[in-house]
């Protein structure tokens, strides 16, 4: 990695990364007496692929839930696009342009793939209740425009063949892809992926990795992801935050992190003598 500045940096593969899109400052999160996150700070830069890794129970998902507004930290500040974010509900965060997927897939099982992806466009639909009820002019035009965008996403993620299929009937790997499609349909400024490859076979993992890279490349979307598979993380991400027991133990490029003694200890275990 070249010199890191306020304005950004250039990655090893020559992509230019911008300034801070999101910044977490001294975040602490507790559930009763349990400390899930202790005093963690890091930033996510415009256009980069940022990974959060760590052993089970390190607090990675909690961190992602803080970013997406599902958890409210007791301490710390969240900055988004240069402004301090007031306490927000998850749907308000979503409307700000932060889309996410879930570790245990949260799709609308009763709907078709197309309808699921269309829900991702809800934040872009402006027509009021009355016009919608009467289904006139503007509402119709809006539906058609949004539909066109959604079809683009569906093509992009190669799920044309299952457009009309009820989501409940899809295999696991496909559900993960539909969930990604729904998040992408929102045209997010920041895309959060909670273990996008968990439970996948090698082939599915390769597909998903390709899509993550393509999304970043094609739409310029900033992506923050949590992943267990170290190989995948090292290949995909520009910078990595490493967490263990709710604390940050490493932050840097994959190479830097790989050689960090604290990280090696956390993953391989260390003799306590």
């Amino acid at each position, binding site marked *: 990695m070249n010199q890191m500045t306020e304005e950004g940096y250039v990655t090893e593969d020559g992509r230019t990364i911008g300034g801070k899109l999101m910044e977490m400052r001294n975040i602490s999160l507790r559930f009763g007496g349990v400390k899930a996150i202790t005093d963690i700070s890091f930033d996510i830069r415009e256009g980069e692929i940022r990974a959060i890794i760590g052993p089970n129970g390190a607090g990675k998902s909690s961190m992602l839930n803080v970013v997406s507004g599902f958890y409210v930290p007791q301490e710390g500040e969240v900055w988004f696009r240069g402004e301090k974010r007031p306490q927000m509900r*998850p749907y308000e965060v979503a409307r700000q342009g932060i889309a996410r997927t879930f570790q245990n897939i949260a799709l609308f099982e009763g*709907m078709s793939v197309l309808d699921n992806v269309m*829900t991702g466009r*809800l934040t872009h639909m402006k027509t009021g209740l009355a016009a919608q009820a009467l289904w006139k002019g503007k509402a119709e035009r809006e539906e058609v425009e949004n539909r066109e965008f959604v079809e683009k996403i569906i093509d992009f993620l190669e799920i044309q063949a299952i457009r009309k299929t009820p989501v409940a009937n899809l295999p696991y790997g496909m559900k993960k892809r539909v969930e990604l499609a729904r998040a992408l349909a929102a045209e997010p400024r920041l895309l959060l992926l909670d273990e996008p490859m968990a439970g996948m076979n090698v082939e599915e993992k390769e597909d998903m990795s390709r899509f993550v890279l393509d999304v970043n490349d094609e739409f310029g979307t900033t992506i923050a992801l949590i992943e267990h598979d170290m190989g995948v993380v090292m290949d995909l991400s520009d910078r990595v935050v490493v967490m263990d027991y709710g604390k940050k133990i490493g932050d840097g490029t994959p190479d830097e992190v790989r050689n960090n003694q604290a990280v090696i200890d956390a993953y391989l275990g260390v003799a306590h003598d």
Partner: protein
Amino acid sequence: MPEQVLWGMEVFLNGLMAGVLYALVALGFVLIYKASGIFNFSQGVMALFAALTLVGIMEGQVPFSHLINAALGTELHHFGWHVPAFLAILLTMAVMVLLAWAVNQFVFRHLVGQEPIILFMATIGLAYFLEGFGDIMWGADIKNLDVGLPQGINTTIDEVTYNIFGYGFFIDNLDLWATAIAALLVVVLTIYSQYSKQGRALRAVADDHQAALSVGISLKFIWILVWSIAGFVALVAGIMWGTKSGVQFSLSLIALKALPVLMLGGFTSIPGAIVGGLIIGVGEKMFEFIVGSMIGGATENWFAYVLALIFLVFRPQGLFGEKIIERV
């Protein structure tokens, strides 16, 4: 054709019409249950409350007049004006939306994430509150509701059937209207929920709260919307039942008839509510007609519940409900 068969046909048709009214109430249950997982015990009382409010507004009744008179020693009862039916219906709808907001604000907002049984208990409380509130607001006497729907025997059907069979069928105009309005209501609600932005958001919330939040849906807005729609359905049901049998507090008991309807049709299915309503309506009328006379009548009181019980044994998810498969 033998007279018995003709009578049977007439009873069958009247059963269908009665079934439509059951279906209307059941529809309100299904809508809320699908969207929020709450089994709304107060749906019947909401219909009563809507009908009371409608009559009150139409006749220019002073709300809370007993309370006001008792406190201030006045003799207020009526404003002295009459509001046209159409305007009164719009105003009543506004009251139902306000009620939807209040229900969410003061009750269900505080119960997010609670067990279904807790939510169910809350709706029982709501039912009793609303019944008392309606009483304080509008008084407990039986009122006539006339929004201009035609009532009485449909002479066309009477004549046509007389010319064909030599026996005129007695079909009430009001029942015909109720059927048409119920059909329209179902079509409108289906189109709305399938093709509009809010409809899609509504189904999304019903399916998965977290996922709905993640795509920017405000649960609060959707819940108020759902309760408003339930209020609207309650208003329609209240108008029909109120016109048919007067606005009285026993109206809330029709909600109980919606229970067997739902057990038959399934708690999550709109077509189920309709078909279930029709089966119960026809079933109880035909049963009374054929078997009733042999066992001393009054079978309409229990037939629906027994039928529902039999269904519970053989098909607990109802005709159209989703099969519940629990992983062990």
